[in-house]
C-alpha cells in the first residue's frame, strides 16, 4: 500500500496547526458528552486527529463555517467506536417515528435537520459515514460490523425515508 503524504507541505502543516488549536478543546468536550470518561475522551480526540490528517486534502477545502460540523461528525464517530467496545450491541432500528415539523414555515434544509436529529443514532451513524465523511460501503461495513449489502440496503432505505417524508410534506420537488 502506498502511504500518501497527508500534509504535503509547510502550508498544509500550518493550516493543520490552526485547525488543531481552534478545535482541540471543543472536540474533547463533545467526546466527554458521549463517553463521560476523560481517558476515553482523550483517545477519541486522538483518533479524530488521525482522521483529520488522513482526509486533510478534503478538509482544507471546506468553508470554515462548515468545518466545525465536519469535525463534530468525526469526533462523534470516533467516540461511538470507543463506546461500542464498552456496550453490548443493540438491535438496529429498521424504522423510526418522524417528528412533526416545528414550524409551518421552515425550509427544506431546516426540516431535514429536524428529521435527522430525531433519527435513531445507529441509523444516523451510517448515513453520516456515507454522506458526510464519504466512506465507501466496504469501509462502513468494517466500522459497523455489518456486511456490505446490509449497509447498502440501510443507506438506501434511510435516504428514501427522508425523501418520502420531504415529498409528503411538500418540500421535495422532482
Amino acid at each position, binding site marked *: 500500500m502506498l*502511504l500518501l*503524504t*497527508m*500534509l504535503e507541505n509547510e502550508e498544509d*502543516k500550518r493550516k*493543520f*496547526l490552526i485547525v*488543531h488549536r481552534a478545535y482541540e*478543546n*471543543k472536540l*474533547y*468536550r*463533545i467526546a*466527554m*458528552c458521549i463517553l*463521560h*470518561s*476523560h*481517558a*476515553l*475522551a*482523550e483517545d477519541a*480526540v*486522538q483518533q479524530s*486527529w*488521525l482522521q483529520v*490528517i*488522513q482526509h486533510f486534502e478534503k478538509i482544507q477545502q471546506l468553508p470554515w463555517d*462548515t468545518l*466545525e*460540523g*465536519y469535525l*463534530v*461528525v468525526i469526533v*462523534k464517530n470516533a467516540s461511538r467506536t470507543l463506546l461500542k467496545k464498552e456496550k*453490548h450491541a443493540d438491535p438496529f432500528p429498521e424504522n423510526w417515528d418522524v417528528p412533526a415539523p416545528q414550524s409551518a414555515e421552515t425550509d*427544506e*434544509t431546516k426540516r*431535514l*435537520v429536524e428529521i*435527522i*436529529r430525531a433519527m435513531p443514532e445507529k441509523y*444516523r451513524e451510517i*448515513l*453520516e459515514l456515507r*454522506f*458526510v465523511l464519504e466512506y465507501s460501503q466496504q469501509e462502513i461495513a468494517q466500522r459497523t460490523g455489518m456486511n456490505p449489502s446490509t449497509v447498502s440496503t440501510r443507506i438506501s432505505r434511510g*435516504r428514501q425515508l*427522508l*425523501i418520502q417524508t420531504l415529498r409528503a410534506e411538500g418540500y*421535495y*420537488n*422532482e
Partner: protein
Amino acid sequence: MNEALFDAKLKQAFLQAAEAEFAAPLAAPAAEPAWSLPYRRRREKMLEDPNRWYHKQARPVWKKMLQQAACLLLAASVTFGALLAASPTVRAAVRSWLREFTGTAVVYRGEDAPKPVATLPEEAPAPKPHPAEEKTETPDARPTEQPDAPQSSAEAAQTAEAGQTIAEPAADETTVRVFSGENDSLDIPVTNSAAQVAAAPAWLPTWLPDGWKLKQFSHNARCVYTDQYGGTLEFTCSQSAQDSLIIAGLTEDKLQRVTVNGVGADYYESDGCTYLFWEDMDSFFSLQSGSYGSLDQANLIKIAQSVKELDAVPAYTLNWTPTGSRMVNRCEVPAGGMKEFVDGDNWYFWFTYAADSAGELYAQGSTPTRVTVGDCEGVYWAAPKKRDATYGGAVTVICDDGSEETRHLASGGQVSTLIWTNKAGVTFSIRGAFDKETLISMAGSVAAAT
C-alpha cells in the same frame, strides 16, 4: 431535484444537525482540559510532524509487532552475544532508551525518538552484593489482631469472637494479610485456584516494604502505591519505543549510576523525592517516590529487582451503583484495573481490582470486620465520620455540556472500604463515603466484563 443535489443538501443537513446537537459544548468557554501526560506527549509528537505521527499510528498492529520482533532478532544476533561474552555480569538491553538532560529536566525517550541523544552506558559499576536473603511476607510474619464484633448474624458465623475456629489454610491456599490505615490487620484465607488469565503480560513489583499498599492504576499503566503515612510510590512500565518520560528538576549532577539485576540504572534524589530508571530486554521501568517521605535507594532497588511479569486477570465491572452515580475515569491493565465514579451528590468513589500477587490493596477506615460478599469472605473498614463537604477536598471539572462541576473528595476519616478476594484469586476493593450495606450491594454486583 436530482440525486446529486439532494445528497449535497443531505450532507449540509447532517453537518448542521451535528452542530446543533452539540451547540452547548461548542459554545462553552475554551477552558483547557487537564490533559494527561501521555496525551500531551502524543500531541507533541503529532504537532511536530503530523505525517510521521499518522504513519506510525496507522500501521496495522501485526506490522508493528513484526517490526519489533525483527529488531530484536537482528540486534540480538549482532550485539547481544558479543556483549555477554565480553561482560557476563552486564545484560545489554536490546532496545535502549535514550537519556537527555535539558538543563532543568531529564528526558528518557524510546528508540523511535527523532532527536539523537546520548545512550545509557552499557558499562555498569561493579554490582553490589545482594542481601543474603529476600525478605518474604508469610502469614506468620506479623501478629494477627482479632476483629471487632460483627454487625449481623450472618457475619457472626465468620468471626473468631463468635467462638468458631477459623480454618487453617489448606496446602494449596494462601492467606491474604490486609491492613487498614490505622494498622489494624486481619488474615483471611484465599483459595489460590488456577485463574483464567489472559495472554497479555503484566509487569509489576512483587515486593514492597512493610506498610505499602497498591492504591490505584492510572491510565498510562502507572501503578500508585501508598503507605500508612501518606507516602507515595509510582511505578511505570513502557514497552513502546514511541514513549518518553520527562521529569522536571532532575539534572545531570544529581544522577547516580546503580545496578538493577546486573544492568546499569539511573538513580536520583531531588527535593525530598527519589527516582529510579532502568530497562531490560523488553521494557523501560521507573519508580518515583515522594510526598511525606520517600523510599531510599536501597528500597527502590529492591522493589525494582522484584518486578516480574504477572498473569493477567479479566476485566471486571461494577453493575450496580447508588442512584445517580456515573463512571468518570477508568484504567485497565493486564494485572488489574480501577474505575472512578461520582455518586448522585458528586462524591468520588473507587472500584479497584488486582491479581493477588500484585500486592495488598489500600484501605481506608478503622477497625476491620469480617463480612460476606456472595460466597467469598471480605473485610470491611467503617469510616469513623459521616461525610461532610466541610472537610476533605473538592475538584472542579468540565462536565458534559461544557459547564463546570464541583466534585467532592472525602477526607480519610469519611471513607469506608470493602475488600474481598474471589475464588479466581482476584482481590477487589470499593472505597467511598458509604455505609456498609451500600458497599456490600455494589460488591455483590461485580462481574467479569463480557
